[in-house]
């Protein structure tokens, strides 16, 4: 068996685990101060683009690189708090932001004139390259798995893979984070078959630093053996634990004298700690927050504030996890205070409303009832948040006459994704190893213009051809032989590309008469046939869709003589 590396490429932290006979979390050497390496088990997902005034010469050297162009990890985060214009953060959120060209140099978004910028893909490459270089492992001798949010669409997955390839990774497999968290739970519980059984449905709620991700996994009985099937994944919700800590910090900031950026960072950190203390069951009723004086007079300039349990409960429980009915949908139009700096943060901060929408989207017009809940993400270290989510969920279930859902105990909130990815990599190579079946969690369409007689001022109506049906399994292919295209050689041919996470019944080849609101447009896919491909200058070809063994979605142009060309996303163009 090839040993496995599971990599959690997180919005705010990365982790890495190795799997062979057992699963081990790996330390990640990184600069924590100028000239000082340490090996904590998380790599903060930050890149700092140092200028001449940032570090003493030579003090950012790494064991594997004398003069790295970026500082990655703890030191990047530290220095970035003092000089934010050179700090790249939340690159992963930008990677999934369809409104921008993700290959262009956008970050840091707040960089002043003259400071270089890098693309979200390049930042992700830098984190992955750091993990590879910092480790003493030969990556080529390992099966590498990189995790992505289940809600990442085909483009964001493609770009993640691109970043991995550019970082020198070979044969990377992508795995969805909530599934990885569930694999980690399976790995920790050899007796899992006694804890869940046929007809159970496990809801994975994964609230990371920057994203919230839902996945529903069904347990089936197949000739006496338990099998797992991923039923549905939620939509992309750009909202996570960092937003909660920031909300607390902004709230407390109003009561304090004006803070400078370094003091605000300290406030943010302390609010995170205060949140965990105040939301634990035996915690205090209030938590002091002290910001030391910024000058050399420490006590004289110190600023004191405090958060109470009631305030934190009000802000976080009612702000992010309000008690709502399962029929309440997230608000779309209204923009909340979370809107900032270009990223399309979700309009509604209420995670419970997003959850209600998710559970009502699995089957039309009904609430799909989970029997168990698996929590993931550092946010859920606060027991009050777990309890609130369960209470709200069980209220919905009671209203529908369904039995209450129970939490799956013994989860590893911080490292589950990396560990679970490593375990999945081992299971893939183990004959009869447990696997979650699922296939593609969305339906994808190609836009087709009907050829009609030209009518002035009227665009020909656009129809949508289902090319990748929901649940299409790894290692399968669909060919659309009755749809023939004439492609001009030497010129880019473009295909409009659409996705839906709510339409689950369209089968391959089915033609939708119009592009409805349930379909969202993705960047176009394009292919340029080589100029010498056909003598006539036009090639008759058909379309083929494939989901690779590693879960990657591909579209191909197939000529009559069998030659094939792959379509690529055109992310350079604004969608």
């Amino acid at each position, binding site marked *: 068996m090839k*040993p496995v590396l599971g990599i959690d490429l997180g919005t705010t932290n990365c982790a890495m685990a190795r799997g062979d006979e057992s699963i081990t979390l790996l330390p990640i*050497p990184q600069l924590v*101060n100028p*000239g*000082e*390496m*340490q090996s904590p088990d998380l790599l903060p997902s930050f890149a700092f683009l140092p200028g001449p005034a940032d570090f*003493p*010469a*030579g*003090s950012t*050297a*790494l*064991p*594997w690189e*004398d*003069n790295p162009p970026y500082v990655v990890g703890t030191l990047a985060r530290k220095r970035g708090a003092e000089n934010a214009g050179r700090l790249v953060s939340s690159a992963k959120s930008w990677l999934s932001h369809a409104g921008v060209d993700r290959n262009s140099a956008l970050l840091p978004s707040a960089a002043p004139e003259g400071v270089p910028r890098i693309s979200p893909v390049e930042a992700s490459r830098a984190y992955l390259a750091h993990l590879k270089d910092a480790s*003493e*492992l*030969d990556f080529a*001798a*390992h099966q590498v798995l990189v995790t992505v949010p289940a809600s990442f669409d085909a483009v964001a997955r493609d770009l993640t893979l691109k970043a991995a390839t550019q970082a020198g990774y070979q044969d990377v497999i992508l795995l969805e984070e909530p599934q990885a968290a569930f694999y980690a739970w399976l790995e920790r519980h050899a007796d899992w078959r006694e804890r869940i059984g046929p007809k159970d449905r496990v809801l994975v709620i994964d609230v990371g630093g920057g994203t919230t991700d839902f996945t529903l996994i069904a347990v089936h009985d197949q000739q006496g053996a338990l099998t797992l099937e991923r039923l549905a994944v939620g939509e992309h919700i750009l909202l996570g634990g960092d937003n909660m800590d920031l909300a607390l910090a902004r709230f407390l900031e109003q009561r304090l004298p004006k803070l*400078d950026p370094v003091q605000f960072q300290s406030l943010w950190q302390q609010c995170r700690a205060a949140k965990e203390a105040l939301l634990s069951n035996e915690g205090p009723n209030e938590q*002091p927050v*002290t910001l*030391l*004086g910024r000058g*050399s*007079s*420490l*006590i*004289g300039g*110190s600023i*004191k504030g405090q958060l109470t349990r009631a305030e934190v409960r009000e802000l976080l429980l009612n702000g992010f996890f309000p008690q709502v009915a399962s029929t309440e949908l997230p608000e779309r139009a209204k923009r909340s205070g979370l809107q900032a700096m270009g990223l399309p943060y979700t309009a509604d901060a209420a995670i419970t409303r997003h959850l209600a929408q998710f559970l009502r989207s699995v089957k039309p017009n009904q609430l799909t009832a989970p029997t168990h809940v698996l929590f993931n993400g550092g946010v859920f270290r606060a027991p009050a948040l777990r309890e609130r989510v369960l209470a709200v969920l069980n209220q919905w279930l009671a209203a529908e006459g369904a039995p209450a859902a129970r939490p799956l105990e013994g989860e590893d909130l911080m490292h589950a994704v990396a560990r679970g990815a490593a375990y999945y990599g081992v299971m893939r190579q183990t004959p009869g190893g447990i696997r979650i079946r699922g296939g593609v969690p969305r339906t994808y369409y190609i836009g087709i213009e009907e050829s009609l007689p030209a009518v002035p001022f009227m665009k020909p109506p656009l129809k949508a051809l289902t090319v990748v049906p929901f649940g299409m399994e790894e290692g399968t292919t669909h060919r659309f032989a009755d749809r023939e295209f004439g492609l001009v050689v030497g010129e880019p041919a473009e295909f409009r590309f659409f996705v839906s996470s709510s339409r689950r019944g369209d089968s391959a080849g089915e033609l939708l008469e119009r592009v409805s609101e349930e379909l969202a447009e993705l960047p176009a896919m394009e292919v340029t046939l080589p100029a010498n491909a056909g003598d006539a200058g036009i090639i008759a070809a058909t379309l083929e869709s494939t989901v690779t063994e590693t879960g990657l979605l591909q579209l191909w142009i197939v000529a009559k003589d069998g030659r094939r060309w792959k379509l690529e996303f055109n992310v350079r163009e604004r969608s």
Partner: protein
Amino acid sequence: MSIGHAFSAFFGILFKNQIPDDVAAALGWVRRDAKPKVAEKPKETIGPGDGALQILGILQRDARLVDFLMENIAPYTDEQIGAAVRGVHEQSRQALERYLQFTPVIDGVEGTYAKITIKDPAAIKLLGNVPADGKAAGGTLRHKGWRVAKTDLPPIFAHQKTDILAPAEIEIA
């Protein structure tokens, strides 16, 4: 691991105290020197004060201990001082524990009888009715003592100015 590799690994570990390269490669490990290679050389001659200044610099950087010790605390109330000290104390301890590993000299319970095992006045100080010959089998343990069992401080580089405990900070508007 093949039998050949297993033998090679066994004798390698037995005689050379290391895993042979081919075995390491077969296991997916690549060897790297334990000490990080750095662009700049560590300081060749460490001055008498460099080590002490380095620790002070760390305590200032991570916990602002020098700011605290150098501040005139007379005008402030106990409450004000207490609020600030909590943070300084917590971060000082974390910094110390990150770089130094502390153990007691005598791992006993203070206030109970302890045997004297080390004849070294620097490690064990005798108090009270100390016999004329300075020899005693044991006595009541008053203080366990502190020993630094291990230091793990970062190297001091040639460019490093250990006399700068904290840089001056200037914010550009």
